[in-house]
Protein backbone atom coordinates (compact mmCIF):
# COMPACT_ATOMS: atom_id res chain seq x y z
CA UNK A 1 0.00 0.00 0.00
CA UNK A 2 1.11 3.46 -0.85
CA UNK A 3 2.52 5.27 2.15
CA UNK A 4 0.97 8.57 1.11
CA UNK A 5 -2.50 7.05 1.04
CA UNK A 6 -1.87 5.48 4.41
CA UNK A 7 -0.80 8.82 5.87
CA UNK A 8 -3.85 10.43 4.28
CA UNK A 9 -6.16 7.82 5.86
CA UNK A 10 -4.47 8.23 9.23
CA UNK A 11 -4.88 12.02 9.18
CA UNK A 12 -8.52 11.69 8.13
CA UNK A 13 -9.06 9.10 10.81
CA UNK A 14 -7.55 11.25 13.54
CA UNK A 15 -9.50 14.35 12.51
CA UNK A 16 -12.79 12.50 12.24
CA UNK A 17 -11.91 10.60 15.42
CA UNK A 18 -11.47 13.83 17.37
CA UNK A 19 -14.88 14.95 16.12
CA UNK A 20 -16.33 11.62 17.28
CA UNK A 21 -14.63 12.33 20.59
CA UNK A 22 -16.44 15.67 20.77
CA UNK A 23 -19.69 13.88 19.98
CA UNK A 24 -19.08 11.48 22.86
CA UNK A 25 -17.84 14.16 25.27
CA UNK A 26 -21.32 15.30 26.28
CA UNK A 27 -22.40 11.71 26.86
CA UNK A 28 -19.42 10.99 29.07
CA UNK A 29 -19.95 14.15 31.15
CA UNK A 30 -23.63 13.35 31.70
CA UNK A 31 -22.74 9.81 32.65
CA UNK A 32 -19.92 10.93 34.91
CA UNK A 33 -22.16 13.17 36.98
CA UNK A 34 -25.64 11.68 36.74
CA UNK A 35 -24.63 8.03 36.19
CA UNK A 36 -27.22 7.98 33.44
CA UNK A 37 -26.52 6.68 29.97
CA UNK A 38 -28.37 9.13 27.81
CA UNK A 39 -29.86 7.07 25.02
CA UNK A 40 -31.19 10.27 23.47
CA UNK A 41 -27.68 11.66 22.98
CA UNK A 42 -27.76 11.06 19.22
CA UNK A 43 -31.07 12.91 19.08
CA UNK A 44 -29.54 15.80 21.02
CA UNK A 45 -26.83 15.97 18.36
CA UNK A 46 -29.53 15.91 15.67
CA UNK A 47 -31.32 18.77 17.44
CA UNK A 48 -28.03 20.66 17.64
CA UNK A 49 -27.48 20.14 13.92
CA UNK A 50 -30.96 21.42 13.09
CA UNK A 51 -30.54 24.46 15.33
CA UNK A 52 -27.20 25.23 13.67
CA UNK A 53 -28.65 24.59 10.23
CA UNK A 54 -31.59 26.94 10.73
CA UNK A 55 -29.45 29.53 12.48
CA UNK A 56 -27.19 29.65 9.43
CA UNK A 57 -29.97 29.44 6.85
CA UNK A 58 -32.19 32.08 8.42
CA UNK A 59 -29.56 34.61 9.44
CA UNK A 60 -26.77 33.86 6.98
CA UNK A 61 -24.23 33.67 9.80
CA UNK A 62 -20.91 31.93 9.33
CA UNK A 63 -21.48 28.27 10.38
CA UNK A 64 -19.20 28.59 13.39
CA UNK A 65 -20.78 31.84 14.52
CA UNK A 66 -24.03 29.87 14.81
CA UNK A 67 -22.51 28.50 18.04
CA UNK A 68 -23.58 31.75 19.70
CA UNK A 69 -27.15 30.56 19.25
CA UNK A 70 -26.60 26.81 19.50
CA UNK A 71 -24.77 26.72 22.85
CA UNK A 72 -27.28 28.65 25.00
CA UNK A 73 -30.27 27.05 23.27
CA UNK A 74 -28.95 23.55 23.85
CA UNK A 75 -27.85 24.33 27.40
CA UNK A 76 -31.39 25.37 28.30
CA UNK A 77 -32.79 22.33 26.49
CA UNK A 78 -30.64 19.97 28.54
CA UNK A 79 -31.24 21.90 31.76
CA UNK A 80 -35.02 21.62 31.45
CA UNK A 81 -34.93 18.03 30.22
CA UNK A 82 -33.15 17.05 33.40
CA UNK A 83 -35.41 19.18 35.56
CA UNK A 84 -38.71 18.00 34.07
CA UNK A 85 -38.10 14.44 32.94
CA UNK A 86 -35.11 12.86 34.64
CA UNK A 87 -35.29 14.35 38.13
CA UNK A 88 -38.71 12.80 38.95
CA UNK A 89 -37.34 9.39 37.99
CA UNK A 90 -34.33 9.91 40.23
CA UNK A 91 -36.61 10.78 43.12
CA UNK A 92 -38.91 7.80 42.45
CA UNK A 93 -36.02 5.36 42.09
CA UNK A 94 -33.93 6.58 44.99
CA UNK A 95 -33.75 3.13 46.52
CA UNK A 96 -33.31 1.08 43.37
CA UNK A 97 -29.83 -0.31 42.89
CA UNK A 98 -29.71 -0.46 39.14
CA UNK A 99 -31.99 2.26 37.86
CA UNK A 100 -32.96 1.26 34.36
CA UNK A 101 -36.09 3.40 34.17
CA UNK A 102 -33.98 6.42 33.23
CA UNK A 103 -32.70 4.51 30.20
CA UNK A 104 -36.29 3.97 29.16
CA UNK A 105 -37.19 7.64 29.53
CA UNK A 106 -34.19 8.75 27.48
CA UNK A 107 -35.05 6.13 24.86
CA UNK A 108 -38.58 7.53 24.78
CA UNK A 109 -37.08 10.98 24.21
CA UNK A 110 -35.02 9.57 21.36
CA UNK A 111 -38.20 8.27 19.69
CA UNK A 112 -40.07 11.51 20.26
CA UNK A 113 -37.28 13.85 19.11
CA UNK A 114 -36.30 11.89 16.00
CA UNK A 115 -39.87 11.45 14.84
CA UNK A 116 -40.89 14.97 15.74
CA UNK A 117 -38.06 16.14 13.48
CA UNK A 118 -39.34 13.76 10.81
CA UNK A 119 -42.83 15.15 11.17
CA UNK A 120 -41.75 18.80 11.09
CA UNK A 121 -38.86 18.76 8.62
CA UNK A 122 -39.58 15.65 6.56
CA UNK A 123 -37.13 12.92 5.67
CA UNK A 124 -35.03 15.05 3.26
CA UNK A 125 -31.27 15.28 3.53
CA UNK A 126 -30.34 18.93 3.89
CA UNK A 127 -26.94 20.45 3.27
CA UNK A 128 -26.00 23.89 4.47
CA UNK A 129 -26.72 26.29 1.58
CA UNK A 130 -24.64 29.41 2.37
CA UNK A 131 -21.62 27.34 3.27
CA UNK A 132 -18.24 29.08 2.95
CA UNK A 133 -16.44 25.92 4.11
CA UNK A 134 -17.89 23.48 1.62
CA UNK A 135 -15.29 21.28 -0.04
CA UNK A 136 -12.36 23.43 1.08
CA UNK A 137 -9.10 21.56 1.22
CA UNK A 138 -5.61 22.29 2.46
CA UNK A 139 -2.94 20.52 0.47
CA UNK A 140 0.54 19.59 1.54
CA UNK A 141 2.17 17.82 -1.37
CA UNK A 142 -0.04 14.85 -2.03
CA UNK A 143 -1.85 15.01 1.27
CA UNK A 144 -5.18 16.79 1.39
CA UNK A 145 -6.89 17.90 4.56
CA UNK A 146 -10.55 18.86 4.68
CA UNK A 147 -10.85 22.32 6.26
CA UNK A 148 -14.20 21.79 8.06
CA UNK A 149 -12.91 18.55 9.55
CA UNK A 150 -9.72 20.27 10.68
CA UNK A 151 -11.71 23.07 12.35
CA UNK A 152 -13.98 20.43 13.90
CA UNK A 153 -10.99 18.59 15.36
CA UNK A 154 -9.59 21.85 16.74
CA UNK A 155 -13.00 22.67 18.24
CA UNK A 156 -13.04 19.23 19.80
CA UNK A 157 -9.70 19.62 21.56
CA UNK A 158 -10.57 23.18 22.59
CA UNK A 159 -13.93 22.10 24.03
CA UNK A 160 -12.35 19.23 25.93
CA UNK A 161 -9.66 21.59 27.26
CA UNK A 162 -12.24 24.17 28.31
CA UNK A 163 -14.36 21.52 30.01
CA UNK A 164 -11.30 20.17 31.80
CA UNK A 165 -10.32 23.66 32.95
CA UNK A 166 -13.90 24.36 34.06
CA UNK A 167 -14.11 21.15 36.09
CA UNK A 168 -10.67 21.58 37.66
CA UNK A 169 -10.46 25.29 38.38
CA UNK A 170 -13.87 26.79 38.95
CA UNK A 171 -16.00 26.55 42.03
CA UNK A 172 -18.93 25.13 40.06
CA UNK A 173 -16.60 22.60 38.43
CA UNK A 174 -15.39 21.42 41.81
CA UNK A 175 -18.99 21.09 42.99
CA UNK A 176 -19.79 19.01 39.90
CA UNK A 177 -16.81 16.75 40.54
CA UNK A 178 -17.74 16.36 44.19
CA UNK A 179 -21.29 15.40 43.26
CA UNK A 180 -20.07 12.87 40.72
CA UNK A 181 -17.84 11.26 43.34
CA UNK A 182 -20.38 11.05 46.14
CA UNK A 183 -23.82 12.59 45.91
CA UNK A 184 -24.68 12.08 49.51
CA UNK A 185 -21.48 13.61 50.88
CA UNK A 186 -21.71 16.51 48.43
CA UNK A 187 -25.27 17.22 49.57
CA UNK A 188 -24.14 17.21 53.18
CA UNK A 189 -21.48 19.80 52.28
CA UNK A 190 -24.25 22.11 51.13
CA UNK A 191 -24.18 21.39 47.41
CA UNK A 192 -27.62 21.33 45.81
CA UNK A 193 -27.29 18.10 43.89
CA UNK A 194 -30.37 18.75 41.74
CA UNK A 195 -28.95 22.05 40.57
CA UNK A 196 -25.64 20.33 39.78
CA UNK A 197 -27.48 17.65 37.81
CA UNK A 198 -29.38 20.29 35.84
CA UNK A 199 -26.21 22.17 35.03
CA UNK A 200 -24.21 19.06 34.13
CA UNK A 201 -26.99 17.90 31.84
CA UNK A 202 -27.13 21.39 30.35
CA UNK A 203 -23.40 21.45 29.69
CA UNK A 204 -23.46 17.93 28.24
CA UNK A 205 -26.30 18.88 25.93
CA UNK A 206 -24.54 22.12 24.95
CA UNK A 207 -21.48 20.05 24.00
CA UNK A 208 -23.74 17.81 21.91
CA UNK A 209 -24.91 21.07 20.30
CA UNK A 210 -21.31 22.15 19.61
CA UNK A 211 -20.60 18.83 17.93
CA UNK A 212 -23.79 19.22 15.89
CA UNK A 213 -22.73 22.70 14.78
CA UNK A 214 -19.26 21.43 13.89
CA UNK A 215 -20.68 18.54 11.87
CA UNK A 216 -23.19 20.62 9.91
CA UNK A 217 -20.72 22.21 7.43
CA UNK A 218 -19.68 18.84 6.01
CA UNK A 219 -22.49 16.48 7.00
CA UNK A 220 -26.08 16.20 5.83
CA UNK A 221 -28.80 17.08 8.31
CA UNK A 222 -31.79 14.72 8.52
CA UNK A 223 -34.05 13.43 11.33
CA UNK A 224 -32.30 10.11 11.96
CA UNK A 225 -28.75 11.51 11.64
CA UNK A 226 -28.20 10.94 15.35
CA UNK A 227 -28.59 7.17 15.38
CA UNK A 228 -25.16 6.22 13.99
CA UNK A 229 -23.58 8.82 16.28
CA UNK A 230 -25.55 7.46 19.21
CA UNK A 231 -24.22 3.94 18.91
CA UNK A 232 -20.75 5.26 18.05
CA UNK A 233 -20.71 7.44 21.16
CA UNK A 234 -21.49 4.42 23.34
CA UNK A 235 -18.58 2.54 21.78
CA UNK A 236 -16.27 5.51 22.28
CA UNK A 237 -17.12 6.22 25.89
CA UNK A 238 -16.85 2.58 26.87
CA UNK A 239 -13.51 2.34 25.06
CA UNK A 240 -12.17 5.44 26.74
CA UNK A 241 -13.77 4.86 30.10
CA UNK A 242 -17.21 6.17 31.02
CA UNK A 243 -16.89 9.57 32.62
CA UNK A 244 -13.40 10.39 31.38
CA UNK A 245 -12.89 13.51 29.23
CA UNK A 246 -9.59 12.52 27.63
CA UNK A 247 -10.78 8.93 27.34
CA UNK A 248 -13.56 10.16 25.07
CA UNK A 249 -11.05 11.84 22.73
CA UNK A 250 -8.74 8.81 22.69
CA UNK A 251 -11.67 6.43 22.16
CA UNK A 252 -12.89 8.67 19.36
CA UNK A 253 -9.50 8.63 17.64
CA UNK A 254 -9.33 4.82 17.91
CA UNK A 255 -12.75 4.46 16.29
CA UNK A 256 -11.89 7.09 13.68
CA UNK A 257 -8.66 5.30 12.77
CA UNK A 258 -10.36 1.89 12.54
CA UNK A 259 -12.98 3.40 10.27
CA UNK A 260 -10.62 5.20 7.93
CA UNK A 261 -7.75 2.71 7.76
CA UNK A 262 -9.90 -0.44 7.95
CA UNK A 263 -11.52 -0.21 4.48
CA UNK A 264 -8.07 -0.67 2.92
CA UNK A 265 -8.08 -4.22 4.19
CA UNK A 266 -11.76 -5.18 4.05
CA UNK A 267 -15.18 -3.89 3.04
CA UNK A 268 -16.35 -0.89 5.00
CA UNK A 269 -19.32 -2.75 6.49
CA UNK A 270 -16.93 -5.24 8.05
CA UNK A 271 -15.10 -2.31 9.62
CA UNK A 272 -18.36 -1.45 11.32
CA UNK A 273 -18.53 -5.00 12.67
CA UNK A 274 -14.97 -4.62 13.97
CA UNK A 275 -15.98 -1.49 15.87
CA UNK A 276 -18.76 -3.43 17.62
CA UNK A 277 -16.40 -6.34 18.22
CA UNK A 278 -13.87 -3.99 19.79
CA UNK A 279 -16.62 -2.57 21.97
CA UNK A 280 -17.68 -6.00 23.25
CA UNK A 281 -14.06 -7.00 23.78
CA UNK A 282 -13.35 -3.95 25.95
CA UNK A 283 -16.59 -4.50 27.88
CA UNK A 284 -15.59 -8.05 28.70
CA UNK A 285 -11.91 -7.48 29.41
CA UNK A 286 -11.92 -4.07 31.08
CA UNK A 287 -15.42 -2.66 31.55
CA UNK A 288 -13.99 0.50 33.07
CA UNK A 289 -12.31 1.34 29.76
CA UNK A 290 -8.85 2.72 29.05
CA UNK A 291 -9.02 5.82 31.27
CA UNK A 292 -12.02 5.01 33.42
CA UNK A 293 -11.96 4.58 37.14
CA UNK A 294 -13.44 1.52 38.67
CA UNK A 295 -16.39 2.70 40.62
CA UNK A 296 -19.36 1.24 42.34
CA UNK A 297 -22.62 2.65 41.06
Amino acid at each position, binding site marked *: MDLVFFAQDCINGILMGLIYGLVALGLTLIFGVL*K*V*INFAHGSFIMVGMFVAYWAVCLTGLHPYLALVIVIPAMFLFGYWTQKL*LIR*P*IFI*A*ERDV*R*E*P*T*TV*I*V*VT*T*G*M*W*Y*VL*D*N*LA*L*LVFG*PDYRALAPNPLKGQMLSYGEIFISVPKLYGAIASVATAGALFWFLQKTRMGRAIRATSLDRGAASLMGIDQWKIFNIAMGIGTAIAGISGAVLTPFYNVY*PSVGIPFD*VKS*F*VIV*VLGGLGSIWGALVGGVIVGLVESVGPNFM*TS*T*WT*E*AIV*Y*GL*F*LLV*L*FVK*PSGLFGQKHD*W
Partner: protein
Amino acid sequence: MTQYELKRNCLAGLLVAAFALPLVISSPTYLHILIMLFLFAYMTTSWNLVGGFAGVLPLGHAVFVGIGAYTSTVLWLQYSISPWIGMIVGGLLAAVVGYLIGKPTLKMRGAYFALSTMAFVEGVRVMVENIDMLGPFKLNGPRGLNIPPLSADQSGFWAFQFSSKEPYYYIALIMLVLVLALTYYIANSKFGYYLKAGGEEPEAAQALGANIASYKVAANSLSAFLTALAGTFLAQMTLFIYPKSVLTLDMSFELAFIALIGGRGSIAGPVIGALLLRPVSEFSRVYFSDSLPGLHLIILGVVLIVVMLYQPRGLTEPLLRLFDRVTARFTAEGKEAEA
Protein backbone atom coordinates in the same frame (compact mmCIF):
# COMPACT_ATOMS: atom_id res chain seq x y z
CA MET B 1 -68.33 -16.21 44.77
CA THR B 2 -64.98 -15.21 46.16
CA GLN B 3 -62.63 -12.73 44.59
CA TYR B 4 -60.32 -15.55 43.57
CA GLU B 5 -63.09 -17.51 41.86
CA LEU B 6 -64.22 -14.39 40.07
CA LYS B 7 -60.74 -13.78 38.72
CA ARG B 8 -60.46 -17.39 37.59
CA ASN B 9 -63.82 -17.21 35.84
CA CYS B 10 -62.87 -13.95 34.14
CA LEU B 11 -59.65 -15.52 32.86
CA ALA B 12 -61.50 -18.57 31.60
CA GLY B 13 -64.04 -16.31 29.90
CA LEU B 14 -61.27 -14.31 28.23
CA LEU B 15 -59.65 -17.51 27.01
CA VAL B 16 -62.90 -18.83 25.53
CA ALA B 17 -63.53 -15.45 23.92
CA ALA B 18 -60.02 -15.44 22.43
CA PHE B 19 -60.55 -18.88 20.93
CA ALA B 20 -63.97 -17.94 19.58
CA LEU B 21 -62.90 -14.59 18.13
CA PRO B 22 -62.06 -15.80 14.58
CA LEU B 23 -65.65 -17.04 14.28
CA VAL B 24 -66.79 -13.43 14.57
CA ILE B 25 -63.92 -11.57 12.92
CA SER B 26 -63.22 -12.57 9.36
CA SER B 27 -61.32 -9.51 8.14
CA PRO B 28 -57.70 -10.58 7.47
CA THR B 29 -56.47 -7.12 8.50
CA TYR B 30 -57.97 -7.36 11.98
CA LEU B 31 -56.87 -10.97 12.34
CA HIS B 32 -53.36 -9.90 11.38
CA ILE B 33 -53.39 -7.17 14.04
CA LEU B 34 -54.54 -9.73 16.62
CA ILE B 35 -51.90 -12.25 15.54
CA MET B 36 -49.16 -9.63 15.88
CA LEU B 37 -50.58 -8.67 19.28
CA PHE B 38 -50.37 -12.28 20.46
CA LEU B 39 -46.92 -12.70 18.95
CA PHE B 40 -45.55 -9.60 20.67
CA ALA B 41 -47.23 -10.55 23.93
CA TYR B 42 -45.56 -13.96 23.55
CA MET B 43 -42.12 -12.49 22.82
CA THR B 44 -42.41 -9.97 25.63
CA THR B 45 -43.43 -12.68 28.07
CA SER B 46 -40.30 -14.57 27.05
CA TRP B 47 -38.26 -11.36 27.44
CA ASN B 48 -39.84 -10.87 30.85
CA LEU B 49 -38.13 -13.99 32.21
CA VAL B 50 -34.84 -12.06 32.13
CA GLY B 51 -35.92 -8.45 31.79
CA GLY B 52 -38.64 -8.72 34.39
CA PHE B 53 -37.76 -11.35 36.94
CA ALA B 54 -34.00 -10.97 36.86
CA GLY B 55 -34.24 -7.18 36.94
CA VAL B 56 -31.87 -6.36 34.07
CA LEU B 57 -32.67 -4.58 30.82
CA PRO B 58 -31.78 -6.82 27.87
CA LEU B 59 -31.91 -4.95 24.57
CA GLY B 60 -30.58 -7.81 22.48
CA HIS B 61 -33.50 -10.15 22.06
CA ALA B 62 -33.78 -9.37 18.35
CA VAL B 63 -30.74 -11.62 17.92
CA PHE B 64 -32.77 -14.59 19.15
CA VAL B 65 -35.72 -13.68 16.93
CA GLY B 66 -33.25 -13.56 14.05
CA ILE B 67 -31.70 -16.92 14.92
CA GLY B 68 -35.13 -18.56 15.03
CA ALA B 69 -36.23 -16.97 11.77
CA TYR B 70 -33.03 -17.74 9.89
CA THR B 71 -32.54 -21.30 11.17
CA SER B 72 -35.97 -22.59 10.25
CA THR B 73 -35.99 -20.73 6.92
CA VAL B 74 -32.58 -22.03 5.86
CA LEU B 75 -33.51 -25.59 6.84
CA TRP B 76 -36.82 -25.35 4.96
CA LEU B 77 -35.40 -23.75 1.80
CA GLN B 78 -32.25 -25.83 1.48
CA TYR B 79 -33.13 -29.13 3.07
CA SER B 80 -36.96 -29.16 3.00
CA ILE B 81 -37.02 -29.77 6.75
CA SER B 82 -40.34 -28.79 8.27
CA PRO B 83 -40.28 -25.38 9.98
CA TRP B 84 -41.65 -27.11 13.08
CA ILE B 85 -38.38 -28.98 13.42
CA GLY B 86 -36.44 -25.88 12.37
CA MET B 87 -38.27 -24.02 15.11
CA ILE B 88 -36.90 -26.37 17.76
CA VAL B 89 -33.41 -26.37 16.23
CA GLY B 90 -33.42 -22.57 16.09
CA GLY B 91 -34.61 -22.44 19.68
CA LEU B 92 -31.81 -24.69 20.86
CA LEU B 93 -29.27 -22.70 18.87
CA ALA B 94 -30.59 -19.48 20.42
CA ALA B 95 -30.39 -21.05 23.88
CA VAL B 96 -26.71 -21.82 23.30
CA VAL B 97 -26.05 -18.27 22.05
CA GLY B 98 -28.06 -16.93 24.99
CA TYR B 99 -25.87 -18.91 27.34
CA LEU B 100 -22.61 -17.79 25.70
CA ILE B 101 -23.56 -14.11 25.63
CA GLY B 102 -25.28 -14.21 29.02
CA LYS B 103 -22.38 -15.77 30.87
CA PRO B 104 -20.05 -12.73 30.65
CA THR B 105 -22.63 -9.94 30.27
CA LEU B 106 -25.07 -10.79 33.04
CA LYS B 107 -22.39 -10.06 35.61
CA MET B 108 -22.38 -6.44 34.45
CA ARG B 109 -24.22 -3.57 36.05
CA GLY B 110 -27.53 -2.43 34.57
CA ALA B 111 -26.40 0.15 32.05
CA TYR B 112 -23.35 -1.80 30.92
CA PHE B 113 -25.50 -4.85 30.35
CA ALA B 114 -28.01 -2.87 28.29
CA LEU B 115 -25.20 -1.37 26.21
CA SER B 116 -23.45 -4.66 25.58
CA THR B 117 -26.64 -6.41 24.46
CA MET B 118 -27.30 -3.46 22.16
CA ALA B 119 -23.85 -3.73 20.61
CA PHE B 120 -24.47 -7.46 20.26
CA VAL B 121 -27.57 -6.94 18.09
CA GLU B 122 -25.88 -4.32 15.93
CA GLY B 123 -22.78 -6.47 15.53
CA VAL B 124 -24.78 -9.54 14.53
CA ARG B 125 -26.88 -7.52 12.09
CA VAL B 126 -23.82 -6.04 10.41
CA MET B 127 -22.28 -9.51 10.17
CA VAL B 128 -25.37 -11.15 8.68
CA GLU B 129 -25.61 -8.30 6.17
CA ASN B 130 -22.09 -9.18 5.05
CA ILE B 131 -22.48 -12.95 4.86
CA ASP B 132 -23.89 -14.53 1.71
CA MET B 133 -22.91 -18.07 2.59
CA LEU B 134 -22.26 -19.23 6.14
CA GLY B 135 -20.48 -22.50 5.40
CA PRO B 136 -23.06 -24.53 3.49
CA PHE B 137 -25.94 -22.32 4.60
CA LYS B 138 -27.21 -19.56 2.36
CA LEU B 139 -28.03 -16.37 4.29
CA ASN B 140 -28.05 -14.06 1.26
CA GLY B 141 -26.65 -11.00 3.02
CA PRO B 142 -28.75 -7.84 3.09
CA ARG B 143 -31.18 -9.19 0.47
CA GLY B 144 -32.56 -11.73 2.92
CA LEU B 145 -34.46 -14.92 2.25
CA ASN B 146 -37.75 -15.39 0.47
CA ILE B 147 -39.95 -18.36 1.33
CA PRO B 148 -41.88 -19.23 -1.84
CA PRO B 149 -45.60 -19.39 -1.12
CA LEU B 150 -47.14 -22.83 -1.61
CA SER B 151 -50.36 -23.52 -3.43
CA ALA B 152 -53.47 -24.23 -1.39
CA ASP B 153 -53.18 -28.04 -1.52
CA GLN B 154 -49.45 -28.09 -0.73
CA SER B 155 -49.71 -25.79 2.24
CA GLY B 156 -50.69 -27.14 5.59
CA PHE B 157 -49.55 -27.95 9.06
CA TRP B 158 -46.31 -29.72 8.12
CA ALA B 159 -45.18 -26.88 5.87
CA PHE B 160 -46.22 -24.28 8.49
CA GLN B 161 -47.91 -22.36 5.71
CA PHE B 162 -51.61 -21.68 5.53
CA SER B 163 -53.73 -19.96 2.95
CA SER B 164 -55.88 -18.25 5.56
CA LYS B 165 -55.06 -16.32 8.72
CA GLU B 166 -57.01 -18.49 11.17
CA PRO B 167 -54.39 -21.23 11.67
CA TYR B 168 -51.74 -18.58 12.37
CA TYR B 169 -54.14 -17.02 14.84
CA TYR B 170 -54.60 -20.25 16.73
CA ILE B 171 -50.91 -21.13 16.73
CA ALA B 172 -50.00 -17.69 18.10
CA LEU B 173 -52.75 -17.90 20.71
CA ILE B 174 -51.70 -21.36 21.85
CA MET B 175 -48.05 -20.28 22.00
CA LEU B 176 -49.06 -17.30 24.15
CA VAL B 177 -51.19 -19.41 26.50
CA LEU B 178 -48.42 -21.98 26.90
CA VAL B 179 -45.73 -19.40 27.62
CA LEU B 180 -48.01 -17.69 30.15
CA ALA B 181 -48.59 -21.02 31.87
CA LEU B 182 -44.84 -21.64 31.88
CA THR B 183 -44.19 -18.18 33.33
CA TYR B 184 -46.82 -18.77 36.00
CA TYR B 185 -45.16 -22.06 36.89
CA ILE B 186 -41.69 -20.50 37.00
CA ALA B 187 -42.83 -17.48 39.01
CA ASN B 188 -44.10 -19.84 41.71
CA SER B 189 -41.10 -22.12 41.71
CA LYS B 190 -37.78 -22.00 43.52
CA PHE B 191 -36.14 -20.91 40.28
CA GLY B 192 -38.47 -17.93 40.02
CA TYR B 193 -37.92 -16.91 43.63
CA TYR B 194 -34.16 -17.01 43.16
CA LEU B 195 -34.45 -14.90 40.00
CA LYS B 196 -36.58 -12.28 41.70
CA ALA B 197 -34.32 -12.22 44.74
CA GLY B 198 -31.32 -11.73 42.47
CA GLY B 199 -33.09 -8.93 40.62
CA GLU B 200 -34.06 -7.01 43.72
CA GLU B 201 -31.36 -7.65 46.28
CA PRO B 202 -28.36 -9.30 44.64
CA GLU B 203 -26.04 -8.96 47.62
CA ALA B 204 -28.55 -10.27 50.13
CA ALA B 205 -29.46 -13.22 47.91
CA GLN B 206 -25.80 -14.02 47.38
CA ALA B 207 -25.15 -13.86 51.08
CA LEU B 208 -27.92 -16.43 51.63
CA GLY B 209 -26.12 -18.80 49.29
CA ALA B 210 -28.04 -18.35 46.05
CA ASN B 211 -25.84 -18.44 42.97
CA ILE B 212 -27.52 -15.46 41.33
CA ALA B 213 -25.34 -15.33 38.23
CA SER B 214 -26.03 -18.89 37.14
CA TYR B 215 -29.78 -18.48 37.62
CA LYS B 216 -29.71 -15.36 35.48
CA VAL B 217 -27.74 -17.13 32.75
CA ALA B 218 -30.18 -20.06 32.81
CA ALA B 219 -33.12 -17.67 32.55
CA ASN B 220 -31.42 -15.94 29.64
CA SER B 221 -31.04 -19.25 27.79
CA LEU B 222 -34.65 -20.20 28.38
CA SER B 223 -35.80 -16.77 27.31
CA ALA B 224 -33.64 -17.01 24.16
CA PHE B 225 -35.13 -20.42 23.33
CA LEU B 226 -38.69 -19.15 23.65
CA THR B 227 -37.98 -15.93 21.74
CA ALA B 228 -36.45 -17.87 18.84
CA LEU B 229 -39.67 -19.88 18.43
CA ALA B 230 -41.44 -16.60 17.73
CA GLY B 231 -38.79 -15.82 15.11
CA THR B 232 -39.77 -18.94 13.17
CA PHE B 233 -43.42 -18.02 13.43
CA LEU B 234 -42.68 -14.52 12.15
CA ALA B 235 -40.70 -15.89 9.20
CA GLN B 236 -43.47 -18.33 8.27
CA MET B 237 -46.10 -15.65 8.48
CA THR B 238 -44.34 -12.92 6.52
CA LEU B 239 -42.55 -15.40 4.19
CA PHE B 240 -39.70 -12.91 3.79
CA ILE B 241 -36.91 -12.19 6.23
CA TYR B 242 -33.90 -9.91 5.95
CA PRO B 243 -31.46 -8.57 8.54
CA LYS B 244 -33.27 -5.25 8.95
CA SER B 245 -36.61 -6.97 9.59
CA VAL B 246 -35.67 -9.48 12.27
CA LEU B 247 -32.33 -8.29 13.64
CA THR B 248 -32.91 -4.67 14.58
CA LEU B 249 -32.69 -2.62 17.70
CA ASP B 250 -36.26 -1.47 16.98
CA MET B 251 -37.52 -4.98 17.66
CA SER B 252 -35.46 -5.26 20.84
CA PHE B 253 -36.63 -1.89 22.08
CA GLU B 254 -40.26 -2.63 21.32
CA LEU B 255 -40.18 -5.77 23.47
CA ALA B 256 -38.65 -3.83 26.34
CA PHE B 257 -41.17 -1.01 25.91
CA ILE B 258 -44.16 -3.33 25.96
CA ALA B 259 -42.91 -5.03 29.10
CA LEU B 260 -42.14 -1.76 30.89
CA ILE B 261 -45.48 -0.14 30.06
CA GLY B 262 -47.34 -3.22 31.15
CA GLY B 263 -45.21 -3.84 34.19
CA ARG B 264 -42.04 -5.87 34.23
CA GLY B 265 -41.84 -8.90 36.41
CA SER B 266 -45.57 -9.50 36.52
CA ILE B 267 -47.23 -12.25 34.52
CA ALA B 268 -50.02 -10.14 33.08
CA GLY B 269 -47.71 -7.18 32.37
CA PRO B 270 -46.52 -8.16 28.89
CA VAL B 271 -50.04 -9.01 27.76
CA ILE B 272 -51.48 -5.76 29.07
CA GLY B 273 -48.56 -3.84 27.57
CA ALA B 274 -49.09 -5.47 24.18
CA LEU B 275 -52.83 -4.80 24.39
CA LEU B 276 -52.11 -1.12 25.01
CA LEU B 277 -49.22 -0.54 22.62
CA ARG B 278 -49.70 -2.82 19.62
CA PRO B 279 -53.09 -1.42 18.52
CA VAL B 280 -51.74 2.13 18.85
CA SER B 281 -48.81 1.40 16.60
CA GLU B 282 -50.78 -0.75 14.14
CA PHE B 283 -53.62 1.72 13.69
CA SER B 284 -51.43 4.80 13.48
CA ARG B 285 -49.27 2.92 10.98
CA VAL B 286 -52.35 2.14 8.91
CA TYR B 287 -54.01 5.54 9.09
CA PHE B 288 -51.20 8.09 9.50
CA SER B 289 -48.11 6.54 7.91
CA ASP B 290 -48.58 8.55 4.68
CA SER B 291 -49.77 11.86 6.03
CA LEU B 292 -47.88 11.96 9.33
CA PRO B 293 -44.84 9.68 9.19
CA GLY B 294 -43.39 8.84 12.56
CA LEU B 295 -46.51 9.83 14.49
CA HIS B 296 -46.96 6.38 15.97
CA LEU B 297 -43.42 6.45 17.31
CA ILE B 298 -44.02 9.88 18.84
CA ILE B 299 -47.14 8.51 20.53
CA LEU B 300 -45.13 5.50 21.67
CA GLY B 301 -42.37 7.70 23.08
CA VAL B 302 -44.77 10.05 24.86
CA VAL B 303 -46.78 7.16 26.33
CA LEU B 304 -43.55 5.61 27.51
CA ILE B 305 -42.25 8.78 29.17
CA VAL B 306 -45.59 9.58 30.82
CA VAL B 307 -46.07 6.03 32.14
CA MET B 308 -42.51 5.94 33.48
CA LEU B 309 -42.99 9.31 35.19
CA TYR B 310 -46.28 8.45 36.87
CA GLN B 311 -46.24 4.65 37.11
CA PRO B 312 -42.59 3.54 37.04
CA ARG B 313 -43.67 -0.02 37.81
CA GLY B 314 -46.03 -0.22 34.84
CA LEU B 315 -49.77 -0.12 34.35
CA THR B 316 -50.65 -3.64 35.50
CA GLU B 317 -50.73 -2.81 39.20
CA PRO B 318 -53.14 0.14 38.97
CA LEU B 319 -55.32 -1.72 36.46
CA LEU B 320 -55.58 -4.75 38.74
CA ARG B 321 -56.43 -2.49 41.66
CA LEU B 322 -59.18 -0.91 39.57
CA PHE B 323 -60.43 -4.38 38.66
CA ASP B 324 -60.54 -5.34 42.33
CA ARG B 325 -62.44 -2.21 43.26
CA VAL B 326 -65.02 -2.72 40.54
CA THR B 327 -65.48 -6.42 41.19
CA ALA B 328 -65.61 -6.05 44.96
CA ARG B 329 -69.30 -5.20 44.58
CA PHE B 330 -70.12 -8.52 42.99
CA THR B 331 -68.38 -10.81 45.41
CA ALA B 332 -69.40 -12.10 48.78
CA GLU B 333 -66.32 -10.67 50.54
CA GLY B 334 -66.82 -7.31 48.89
CA LYS B 335 -70.43 -7.11 50.05
CA GLU B 336 -69.42 -8.01 53.56
CA ALA B 337 -66.78 -5.34 53.52
CA GLU B 338 -69.27 -2.75 52.32
CA ALA B 339 -71.83 -3.75 54.90
